[in-house]
């Protein structure tokens, strides 16, 4: 029930364009643009709602009520916040590098949006089904480091600069285990295509075949989106807000929204690579595939938020030591064990 809502809309749009006599190439282009626009609108709206979810979960963990005034149960609180930020002035300090300073908050939303273009939101619901999807997401994800640094450097502020350098050091250190942990799954499936990886999990989800890789990916992912316990980048008690210190109004909001966007990308990747993507557990197909995908993604997002409100921040030396001395060797060992295991598995001939 409801399984074919979205694919059905795409099909009927295609049929309508065909009926209107639009040439096939142009109609494919129109359908693609509609798909991508739908994803962009969904992600932007969803990010606003994630801020509300975060505040409610924080309130629950701290025995408070949380936002409850604007709209029913406070549901419109973040909408009001965004409208307020839109109306605020974007202050440009005198000695900043103006172009870079203004470009950074615009560009920072680009890498997560590019990643969303290949994510399958349900069975056959990837806007673009790329055969190197996993690699593509890693490649566009690596671009965000330099954009955060642009903001930190151009602000011409000590705190921003320290925060910007922390972004670079942290993201470079944790990108290595992030990539290496996915290699185990890729070795098992022998493909880089997201759709094929999800389909390969029909028997067992890879969280059971690759539990260590899942843990490494999740920890490195938390670090990659700069959230507690790895939020040294914007450690409020040390460096005010890191690279975002000088920003105000919508420019500041863009950084916050991008953080939630990146968190969604990591959650989607965890779901796709380890939790079986859109596949229903135990053959419970009474819910449509896209609904299962969202349940899993929101479960991952909830764990992100849970960790954020229950753990303290770690020190810089602990952060880098943990990354290089624990996560990298562990992920290399995981690759080795996976390779040996695959050979033993074949030798036994199961």
């Amino acid at each position: 029930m409801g399984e074919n809502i979205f694919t059905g809309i795409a099909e009927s749009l295609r049929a309508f364009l065909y009926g209107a006599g639009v040439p096939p190439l142009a109609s494919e282009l129109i359908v693609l643009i509609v798909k991508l626009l739908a994803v962009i609108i969904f992600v932007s709206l969803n990010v606003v709602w994630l801020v509300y979810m975060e505040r409610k979960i924080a309130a629950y963990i701290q025995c408070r009520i949380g936002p409850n005034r604007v709209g029913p149960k406070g549901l419109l609180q973040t909408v009001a916040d965004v409208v307020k930020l839109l109306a605020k002035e974007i202050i440009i300090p005198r000695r900043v590098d103006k172009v870079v300073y203004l470009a950074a908050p615009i560009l920072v939303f680009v890498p997560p949006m590019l990643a969303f273009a290949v994510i399958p939101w349900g069975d056959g619901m990837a806007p673009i089904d790329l055969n190197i999807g996993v690699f593509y997401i890693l490649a566009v994800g690596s671009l965000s480091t330099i954009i955060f640094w642009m903001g930190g450097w151009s602000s011409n502020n000590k705190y921003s600069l320290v925060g910007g350098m922390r972004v670079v050091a942290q993201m470079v250190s944790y990108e290595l285990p992030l990539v290496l942990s996915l290699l185990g799954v890729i070795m098992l499936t022998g493909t880089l295509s997201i759709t094929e990886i999800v389909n390969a999990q029909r028997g067992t989800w890879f969280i059971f075949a690759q539990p260590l890789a899942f843990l490494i990916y999740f920890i490195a992912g938390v670090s990659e989106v700069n959230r507690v316990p790895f939020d040294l980048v914007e450690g409020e008690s040390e460096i005010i807000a890191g690279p975002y210190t000088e920003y105000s109004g919508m420019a500041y909001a863009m950084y916050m929204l991008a953080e939630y966007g990146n968190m969604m990308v990591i959650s989607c990747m965890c779901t796709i690579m380890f939790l079986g993507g859109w596949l229903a557990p135990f053959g419970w197909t009474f819910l449509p595939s896209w609904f299962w995908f969202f349940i899993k993604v929101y479960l991952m997002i909830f764990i992100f938020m849970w960790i954020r409100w229950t753990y303290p921040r770690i020190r810089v030396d602990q952060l880098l030591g943990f990354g290089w001395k624990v996560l990298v060797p562990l992920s290399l060992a995981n690759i080795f064990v996976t390779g040996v295991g695959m050979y033993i598995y074949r030798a036994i001939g199961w």
Partner: protein
Amino acid sequence: MEGIWTAVAFYLLAATIVVSALLVVMLKNIVHSVLWLAVCFVSMGGLFLTLDADFLAAVQVLVYAGAVCIMVVFGIMLIQRGNMGSTNLFNNQTKAAAGVVALVLVVCGYLAATTPWASPAFAVPEKTVESIAEIMLTKYVIPFEVAAILLLVALVGAIFLAKEVKKADAHND
């Protein structure tokens, strides 16, 4: 139809690459140079995409725009200079540079003109990753392993340097 759009994409990307590469060299502020370098690398990735080499395009973005630029950022941050306006120095050897560039252009133009450009007999396969992996681990396995050993040596060297610094600190205490 398709050919026209490929040509348009090629010329747009080529113009972006040339302009951003020039800006990398010409700009006085080295941070701006790095940012234009990233633009240059990303447009190079686009150029690979027009050739249907999607894997190479992703590698280009991941390795060059994502990692090499960051290495340059580390380099910049280790430099101390009060005025950022004069970090990317220009040594005014324009005449010698013009001569070398003219020579390179002539040689490249001559080679391009004399090469018999044959269009490939078969279309680019849809999945390039498998073919790259296969050729890398069969025909080109020795260069591949040599590169791996090179990286290992660099890694050991980096660890050695880091250890040395620690020892020196211990003596100072």
